[in-house]
């Protein structure tokens, strides 16, 4: 096993043992971190590794949450089947949006995806009969193979398993030739194309995978909250997602979950201050780029290096935030 694998499995082991003694409230927060972390993994693939900026991932997240919620509650499908269909729906819509979106570069892509996210919100609102619109839908506790996740602890384990599988998936493809091509493309699209890389296909693929992961995040999020309504999936959520990967650390698996923890825990810590936690968000987003472009994972690395005397293992190679990230010129 490499250091990265040891580190990863150690984190999973800790995450599996720690919650046994925790109150339901903390379990709920950890569950949310898991669900958001899955979204961050996907968004990191798209933005951190391939340099495409999406301001519409709340749309895919909502597609996942609503598809699974509607299929289980209205059509009585078992949760695993509904989850699989929801992820497939995220993938499909990701392809549909991705194919035209690869024509767009940089800021235009950001604006188009922003429009997409708001569009999904309107669609949910418009089809009140199916989605409940502003009144929302109640979510039943999911059951997987006869095992009903009807308590916060069981739900937490469900999310932990799903998140671990996603990390394994991403960790496996991160070293693949495909993702290396993706990084090459981010750094210079023209050079990548000249070397015979099929830029369009790769971009669409990255978009679809990232959309599918966002949908899976939604599938996990819905039962954790127990309720979905259109106000949960606004532009604000898309921005939360992007701030998650930026604050956590671009292109990093550990960073994805650190960022998710940041956006889940900070509002809770600042609960007494009303909406002011958004100022903290805003400042964090600014300060990260002004002073510390490596994000939270940079701090973890630093501490790891102090203790272990070697670079932290939990990071895919050569995917630090480059000046070119998101700039396709």
């Amino acid at each position, binding site marked *: 096993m490499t250091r990265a694998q040891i580190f990863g499995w150690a984190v999973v082991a800790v995450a599996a043992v720690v919650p046994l003694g925790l109150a339901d409230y903390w379990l709920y927060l950890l569950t949310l971190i898991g669900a958001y972390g899955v979204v961050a993994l996907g968004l990191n693939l798209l933005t951190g590794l391939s340099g495409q900026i999406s301001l519409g991932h709340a749309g895919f997240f909502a597609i996942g949450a609503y598809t699974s919620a509607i299929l289980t509650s209205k059509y009585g499908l078992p949760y695993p089947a509904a989850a699989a269909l929801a992820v497939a729906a995220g993938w499909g819509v990701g392809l549909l949006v991705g194919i035209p979106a690869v024509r767009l570069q*940089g800021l235009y892509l950001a604006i188009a995806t922003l429009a997409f996210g708001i569009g999904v919100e309107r669609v949910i609102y418009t089809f009140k009969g199916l989605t409940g619109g502003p009144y929302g839908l109640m979510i039943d506790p999911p059951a997987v193979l006869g095992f009903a996740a009807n308590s916060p602890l069981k739900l937490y384990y469900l999310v932990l398993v799903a998140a671990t599988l996603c990390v394994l998936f991403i960790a496996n493809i991160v070293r693949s030739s495909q993702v290396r091509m993706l990084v090459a493309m981010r750094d210079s699209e023209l050079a990548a194309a000249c070397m015979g890389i099929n830029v369009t296909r790769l971009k669409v693929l990255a978009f679809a995978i990232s959309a599918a992961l966002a949908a899976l995040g939604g599938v996990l999020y819905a039962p954790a909250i127990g309720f979905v309504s259109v106000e949960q999936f606004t532009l604000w959520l898309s921005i939360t997602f992007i701030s998650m990967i930026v604050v956590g650390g671009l292109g990093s698996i550990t960073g994805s979950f650190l960022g998710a923890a940041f956006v889940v825990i900070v509002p809770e810590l600042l609960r007494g201050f009303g909406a002011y936690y958004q100022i903290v968000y805003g400042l964090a987003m*600014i300060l*990260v780029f002004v002073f510390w472009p490596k994000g939270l994972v940079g701090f973890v690395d630093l501490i790891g290096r102090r203790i272990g005397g070697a670079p932290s293992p939990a990071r895919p190679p050569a995917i630090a935030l480059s000046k070119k990230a*998101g*700039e396709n010129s």
Partner: protein
Amino acid sequence: MDQAVINGLAEGSVYALLALGLVFINRITQVATFAHGEVAACAAFIGFSIFQATGMPFVVAVLCSIVAGGVLGYAIERIVIRRVQTSGLLATIIVTLGLYFVIHNAIVAIWGPEVRPYPAIFGDTTVRFAGVAISSQHIGVIATAFLIAIALAAYLRWTRTGLALRAIPQNRYGAEVIGLNLRRLSATAWIIGSAVGAMAGVLIAPLTFLNSNMMGAPLIKAFAVAALGGLDSLVGAFVGGLLLGVIENVMVVYIPTYLKDSIAFFFIFIVLLVQPKGLFGRVRMEKV
């Protein structure tokens, strides 16, 4: 129908001014700022507070708003943007989104979330013109937008700084070589762009009432029309803004009201699909 067109032109004037400021800043600094709307809202609030506290004539308060917009723009450029300007698109998008949250919630913190009536700048009379009743408010808004656009065009056309500001988007490298002070001109662009944005805030406040959320939707629409113009065409942004206002208000006759705000996004999605650089955008050749 005529009424819808007039309303549309008035609303569109606000989008147009907002988009104008956005494009003005983006042309010089290559930063499309998501904080633009909040800067405008903050400026409108500052002017309003000065008006209430001192009781000076309202026109002076409006001027204070515009100055406040310029000062805010300058502060943002000096303190934040200058440090990240060369760090790429993702950095500037995230940082300006961060600024959006900071300013937006600062407004909520200082002035509270409540909606306040904002005095009508151009009075509350109605003018009859060619059989259509037009409120003086609407005429005033449209006229002001055109005046500002013309003033901006004159500034760019006939002043030395204006000339420099036109040179930069044409050839950044060349502009630097001939000794233009890019840093100072960036600050200038932020001041002017934010002041124009502040004017949009002041103009929209009487229509939507003064509140912390008033610039959210207009900003996104301004982005939409700015993108139509390729983010670097001032004329495109202005015309696009007016056009969007009219289209929205005419369409609303045929579709449910709550879909009104979606027209802009539908519009932009279609345009970007057909014309990825916007309708007026220049296609840039890439050198290898």
